[in-house]
Each structure stands twice: as structure tokens, then as C-alpha cells.
């Protein structure tokens, strides 16, 4: 974080956190309402409340631009709520709402980056005001205000004057309550008024200026302060009951079935959720990781090996169980559903469809799938690029769709699902599919492949779209065509150890799947020894391990070793050869074969020895090493019980044995 404001000020941080959350919730609600093309009372209530909170906290942080914009939108919804039956021009209405929300979003963003929120909300305010004017004046709702009147110091009999004022004002407006309440009977109240002023709550259809004018007609008034009141939270206490009944209460009553539920529903939300700095979580995670190692260090200690004590073993097992649970809990704290990420995409698609004049339907499946917080941050950008590409390049124009007999509206499907230790995120469009010939032609023109390069498989051709600078678009649009997006997507996903798979069927659409690891932190691993080095294989990818028999070995003409297992033939992978380390057994029958599977492909890895299974904390390789040379086969490293380091192998890279040789285009990226 660069901004001095953003980190130093916990209040501001809290504000940003809250506002961002509210904005996200609002966005979701808007999208829901827009697709339904109506507002139900519940949604209106929710939007109203959220906007009110945003306004209030922005005002508290004296960020006036946000406060003003939120205020006018709040007004808008106030009117909508009060006139729920009135017809609305939904297109204009939603445009207004989106504009307003975007404005608030941009301003919030500015603050987060340590800049001043210097946007001018007057455009939005004017637009909303214009829209509001379309409501007929007589349906204008009553607004509530809190007025504080101070009388001139030496006027005396303040209580009587106040009583007269109330009496006078009742001609023009409704006076709901006042403080002190006993002005008519109690002369002592004059003293209180002199000290604190005379405070009353009123309701009126008129504008603030007019109300002020009414009040100021009375003699001996020194000062009048008027401020709008929306709910009891800002109203003073003794008046709150009557105020609640008349304004907030009546508003809530209109929400048919949930008048009393609102406060009840909100309360547990406040008390059961706390927001925690991610840094702290990271630290906790690290500590738990260290603890897992320490636990292994203690319970598997050399000198304990010969101790036969049932009691000790029991205690050790207990300790292990607790550490395991602790780990699970810490992990689960960090897991966040993809909902918000998908919602963001929903928004992107909606906006793009509007701007490009394409009709787009969005289908979202499995948004509740949970992924580690760190990973979510990393995939948001790539996903956005993929979605943009799908809408811009993937979907045809409505005319084209009509002529090819497809439904007019294109469909973008966003899907997330768990697949073993990975999460699959799928972006699917039902557009025209990738045009292989066109991709090849562009790649040739842009010099990414040579005329004489060998026959490329479909997959390799599709992968060309991830090269930096590659674009089949002749014209650069607002959304795509510069050839940057897919490259960024590819790199980001690769960075977190994920992969991108492209499938496409000409005429019926493209599917791009992101395969990302569920978490980067802790895995179940099998420690193995090859030559002098220790490695760890994720247990999830291990199918079985066995001692090979000499008669099951096969050799193909190139001398590649293979083994028959239950009538199936699997390639044998020698880690030392693959990684150029050397020093392992040459004789297969002396080693152990570990069969690993990834994406339906199986490979038997030859290892010297299995050292045992253990939960390991994945640490990334030092950035320096990654910089010098990214090693595909290594997913990271971990500390073993004795403090030594073990390298964690990436089964996906091992299985796709010839990955580097096969995709020349992609390997040249590095």
C-alpha cells in the first residue's frame, strides 16, 4: 500500500472495508433486480439501508463526494419505496443507479490508493433529481427533519416561546416530538432550552429552505439548525420511539412480512463476524505450519524411536489430532467463496453486452465454491480478461447469431467446481468458437510461428492466443484487441501454479478452464528419496506404489522404459534423469515405483525409497531461484521434521512429460 492514509488510519481502513463490502452487496442486489426488471420491497429496503450506511460513514470520514452521491441515491430509493406502485422507467433508473454506484466505487478506490476523493457528484445528483421530478409532486413523500432552535439569550420564557413555535408550525408540517417534552407545564424547561436549545422532529413535504423560513418567522429566534432524519439511529433517544413508529416503522411495515426481523437479522451479523487483517491470518498460517513441523519433530524424534510406551503413543496421537484440527480450522478461515468474484464478472458481462450491443445471458454455477483468499485475489484479473474475450471475441453479433440459427442472446457460463486438490473455473461461451486458420495466419504474420514449423495440434494452436501481443482483432476496442489480456491471464494463473485449458468447437463455442490449486499452504505429502535428494509428492496424486518385477518391464524402440500393471502399460519416469541430478539406482527392480495420476494420465515414478507420509507446509521456492529459472517440476519446497528441506514435485508437470517439447510456442515465453 502506497497511500499513507490507507495503512496508518485504522478508522479509514475500517471504513474502506465496510464500504467495499456494502458496494459489493449492492451490486449483487442491483444485478438481481435488473434481471428481474423490478424491485421487490425487500431489495429496496436493503439498498436503502446500505446506501444510508455508506452515506453516513462517508460523511463521518468527511468524504463529501461519496456522501452526496449516496445521499441522492438514498433519496431515490426512498421515493421508490414510498411510491412502490408508481411506474418506473427501468432502463433510465438502472443507468442512474449504476452510474451512482460506479461513482462511489471510483471514489472509494481513490481513497484506497491514498488519493483524495475529488470526484464531482453533481452530475449524478442532477440526473437523479431530474428523474425524481418525474414523480408527481403530490406523491412526494414526507421527509423527516430534526430541528434545533436557539432563542436569543435574553428573550426569557423560552418554554412558552417554544410551545408557540410548535403550535405555529403545525399549520405547515407535522411535529412529531420535541425536547424538552414538558414545555407547556414545566417552567423549569426554559432553563434547559436556554442551555441546549429546543429540539424537535418534524415531517414535511417541503424543501429545507421553506421549512427554515417557516421556523424563522417566529420572533426571538437566534439560530435554527435543520438536519434530515432517516431512521432512529440518528434521532435522539427520547423521541426515538414515536419517531420509529411513524417513519422507520411505517417504512418497515410496508416490507410486509419482515417488520421486526430487520433488526433481529442484522444483530447477529454484527456480533458473529469480525474482520481480520489478512496479514495476521498469514502469520497464523505460518505459525501453524511451523507447529505441524515441530509436532513431527517431537513425535518422530530419533531418541524416542525405541521407547515403547503406550501412554506416549496415545499422547502423541492426541497432539497430532489437535494440530490437524487446528490446521483445518486455520485453513477454513482463509477460504472464501467465489461469489463476489463471479458477481464482478457478472457486472463486467452486463456492461460489455450493453456497450457492444450484444444480448448476453449469464449463467453462474457453483459460485459457493471456496478458494484460498490469496488465490482469489490472483484469479480476479485473469478471469476478467477471459470473460471480456468471451463476450467480445467469442460471441457473435445478434445478426450473425440469427443467421446461424442460434438464439439471439448469447450465453456466457461461469462455473466453479472442486476437482481433487484443484478448483476448476470455467468460462464458456456459445459463440463462434476459435478460428484455427485465422489464429495460424495471425501468428505467422506476427512472427510467432514460422512457415516451416511442424504441424501444430489443435491445443497448440489454441495456446497461441496466450502469447503476448497476439490478437486476431483488426481493431482495438475498448475491451480487447491489444493482445495483452490473455497473456496476463496466462501468466497470473501460471504464477499460482495453475493451468489454463482451452477447448473450442467451431460454431458452437469456446470453453476456457482455469485449473487452480485449492490452497497453497498445506498438503498431504509422501516423502521419497531419489539419489541423494529428498522430494515430496502430493498424496492426492498418488495412486499406488509397488516393487516392480523384472518380467513386467518393457522397452519401446527408443529405449523408453514401461511397465505392465494389471494388463495396462505405464511409462516409467526416472526423476534423476528428468531433473538432471544423477545418483539414483539404475536397476529398476531395486527401487520402488510410485504411480501418480493427473488428468487421466498416469506415470510411474521410480524412486529409491519411500520415506513416509506427512503433512507438509508448502513454501514457495525463493523468488531469486524462480527468477533465474522457473522449474516446472517443482511446486515448492517444505521443511521436514529434522529441519532439512524437501522439494515438492508437481505431479501435473511430471505427468505431462514432454510438455516443454510439445508446445514450442509457450515454452518460448520463459
Amino acid at each position, binding site marked *: 500500500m502506497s497511500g499513507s492514509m490507507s495503512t496508518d488510519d485504522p478508522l479509514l481502513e475500517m471504513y474502506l472495508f465496510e464500504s467495499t463490502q456494502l458496494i459489493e452487496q449492492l451490486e449483487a442486489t442491483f444485478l438481481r433486480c435488473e434481471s428481474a426488471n423490478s424491485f421487490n420491497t425487500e431489495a429496496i429496503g436493503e439498498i436503502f439501508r446500505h446506501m444510508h450506511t455508506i452515506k453516513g460513514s462517508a460523511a463521518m470520514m468527511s468524504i463529501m463526494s461519496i456522501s452526496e452521491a449516496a445521499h441522492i441515491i438514498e433519496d431515490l430509493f426512498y421515493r421508490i419505496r414510498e411510491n412502490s406502485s408508481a411506474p418506473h422507467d427501468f432502463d433510465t433508473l438502472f443507468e442512474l443507479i449504476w452510474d451512482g454506484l460506479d461513482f462511489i466505487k471510483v471514489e472509494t478506490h481513490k481513497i484506497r490508493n491514498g488519493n483524495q476523493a475529488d470526484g464531482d457528484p453533481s452530475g449524478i445528483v442532477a440526473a437523479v433529481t431530474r428523474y425524481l421530478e418525474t414523480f408527481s409532486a403530490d406523491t412526494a413523500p414526507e421527509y423527516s427533519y430534526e430541528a434545533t432552535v436557539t432563542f436569543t439569550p435574553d428573550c426569557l420564557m423560552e418554554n412558552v416561546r417554544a410551545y408557540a413555535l410548535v403550535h405555529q408550525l403545525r399549520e405547515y408540517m407535522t411535529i412529531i416530538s420535541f425536547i424538552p417534552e414538558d414545555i407547556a407545564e414545566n417552567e423549569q424547561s426554559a432553563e434547559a432550552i436556554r442551555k441546549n436549545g429546543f429540539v424537535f422532529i418534524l415531517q414535511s413535504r417541503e424543501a429545507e429552505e421553506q421549512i427554515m423560513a417557516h421556523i424563522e418567522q417566529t420572533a426571538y429566534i437566534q439560530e435554527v439548525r435543520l438536519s434530515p432524519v432517516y431512521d432512529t439511529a440518528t434521532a435522539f433517544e427520547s423521541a426515538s420511539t414515536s419517531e420509529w413508529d411513524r417513519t422507520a416503522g411505517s417504512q418497515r411495515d410496508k416490507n410486509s412480512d419482515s417488520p421486526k426481523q430487520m433488526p433481529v437479522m442484522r444483530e447477529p451479523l454484527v456480533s458473529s463476524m469480525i474482520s481480520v487483517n489478512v496479514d495476521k491470518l498469514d502469520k497464523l498460517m505460518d505459525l501453524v505450519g511451523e507447529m505441524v513441523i515441530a509436532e513431527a519433530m517431537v513425535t518422530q524424534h530419533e531418541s524416542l524411536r525405541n521407547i515403547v510406551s503406550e501412554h506416549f503413543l496415545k499422547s502423541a496421537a492426541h497432539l497430532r489430532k489437535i494440530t490437524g484440527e487446528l490446521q483445518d480450522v486455520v485453513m477454513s478461515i482463509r477460504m472464501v467463496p467465489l461469489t463476489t468474484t463471479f458477481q464482478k464478472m457478472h457486472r463486467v458481462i452486463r456492461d460489455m453486452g450493453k456497450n457492444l450491443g450484444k444480448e448476453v445471458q449469464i449463467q453462474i454455477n457453483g459460485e459457493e465454491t471456496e478458494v484460498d483468499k490469496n488465490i482469489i485475489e490472483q484469479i480476479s484479473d485473469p478471469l476478467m480478461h477471459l470473460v471480456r474475450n468471451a463476450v467480445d471475441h467469442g460471441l457473435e453479433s445478434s445478426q450473425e447469431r440469427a443467421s446461424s440459427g442460434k438464439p439471439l442472446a448469447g450465453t456466457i457460463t461461469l462455473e466453479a467446481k472442486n476437482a481433487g486438490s484443484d478448483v476448476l473455473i470455467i468460462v464458456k461461451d456459445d459463440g463462434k468458437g476459435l478460428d484455427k486458420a485465422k489464429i495460424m495466419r495471425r501468428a505467422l504474420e506476427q512472427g510467432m510461428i514460422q512457415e516451416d514449423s511442424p504441424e501444430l495440434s489443435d491445443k497448440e494452436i489454441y495456446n497461441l492466443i496466450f502469447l503476448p501481443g497476439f490478437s486476431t482483432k483488426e481493431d482495438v476496442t475498448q475491451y480487447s484487441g491489444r493482445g495483452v489480456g490473455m497473456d496476463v491471464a496466462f501468466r497470473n494463473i501460471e504464477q499460482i501454479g495453475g493451468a489454463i485449458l482451452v477447448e473450442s468447437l467451431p460454431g458452437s463455442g469456446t470453453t476456457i478452464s482455469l485449473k487452480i490449486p485449492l490452497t497453497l499452504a498445506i498438503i498431504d505429502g509422501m516423502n521419497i528419496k531419489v539419489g541423494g535428494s529428498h522430494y515430496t509428492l502430493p498424496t492426492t496424486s498418488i495412486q499406488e506404489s509397488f516393487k516392480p518385477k523384472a518380467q513386467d518391464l518393457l522397452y519401446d524402440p527408443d529405449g523408453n522404459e514401461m511397465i505392465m500393471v494389471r494388463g495396462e502399460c505405464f511409462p516409467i519416469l526416472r526423476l534423476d534423469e528428468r531433473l538432471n541430478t544423477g545418483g539414483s539406482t539404475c536397476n529398476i527392480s531395486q527401487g520402488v515405483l510410485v504411480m501418480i495420476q493427473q488428468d487421466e494420465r498416469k506415470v510411474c515414478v521410480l524412486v529409491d525409497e519411500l520415506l513416509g507420509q506427512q503433512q507438509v507446509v508448502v513454501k514457495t*521456492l525463493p523468488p531469486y531461484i524462480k527468477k533465474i*529459472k522457473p*522449474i516446472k517440476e*517443482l511446486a515448492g*519446497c517444505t521443511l521436514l521434521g529434522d529441519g532439512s*528441506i524437501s*522439494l515438492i514435485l508437481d505431479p501435473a508437470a511430471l505427468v505431462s512429460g514432454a510438455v516443454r517439447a510439445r508446445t514450442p510456442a509457450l515454452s518460448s515465453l520463459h
Partner: protein
Amino acid sequence: MKQSPLQDLELEEDSLKNKYLTFALGSEVYGIEIRYVTEIIGVQSITPVPELPEYIKGIINLRGKIIPVMDVRLRFRKPFREYNDRTCIIVVDIKEISIGLIVDAVAEVMTIEESNIVSPPDLNQLSRRYIQGIGKSGDEVKLLLNCDELLNHQETENLSAIGQV
């Protein structure tokens, strides 16, 4: 309040200024700016990482933190020498990258005034670019390392190597 960390930093910078940690590689004595140095440890078990240049010996576990180690001898294309109990790993922190430098022996911390530092002669030697200056202290000469180059230069080497493949 807000000033104090800055002032502290300035003071610290000041006290570190012109100070060099000197170490030996064979018969030569090198110096490295002390502000880069985090700690000095003895040689411990190094886990080799495959497919890296020869001079990156592997990674070590520094109290739970995993850092790469570089054999400075091999970096300068000098012959490898077995590690012994004089061999040290100097842990340096350069632009948020931690790395251990394996050297024959650590000598001392000394102050070399800027006036006593001259630019290296313009010889066309590989190790030359890693030397930012030559410091004189009494009648001895120390080669002052340019840490940035030491860490970052192989990027281009690496790229050109890929180009050849």
C-alpha cells in the same frame, strides 16, 4: 512521533555508511557494503535444486525461511573448493531478495572512506562488472562488490542461454 523512525533510519544509515564486511576468496579480499548484510552463518546442509546454474548451490533453511545460496567462487569462475569450518555463508538482503553468499572466510568489518575508493580498471573480465570499486586501506586493497549486479546480472546471461537453445 512520525519523525522518529525516519530519524532512526537516518542514524542507522549513517552508522553503516562507508562500512564494509570483508571476506576472502582465495588470495583476494573482497568487501561488501554492510547495509546489505543480515547475518553470517557457518556452512550448513544445502539442499540442491535441479536445473540451476552451477554457482547456485541450492537452498538452505534459515530458521524456517528458505533462502538460496550462491557460491561466490563459482560465480567468479574460480575453481570449486571444498567447504571447511572456515567457510561462511553471508546472508544478504538486496532489494527484498534474501540470498546466502558462500565465501572462503569472513575477515572483518572496516570503514573505507569514499576518498579511498577508486574505480576499477577497465579490464574486459567477467568478474569486473561485479566490482564497483577498489578500496584502499593501509597498504591493502579490497575489491568492493556490486551486490545488485551479482544478483541480477545472470538474468541476461540466462536469456542469452535460452536463445542459444
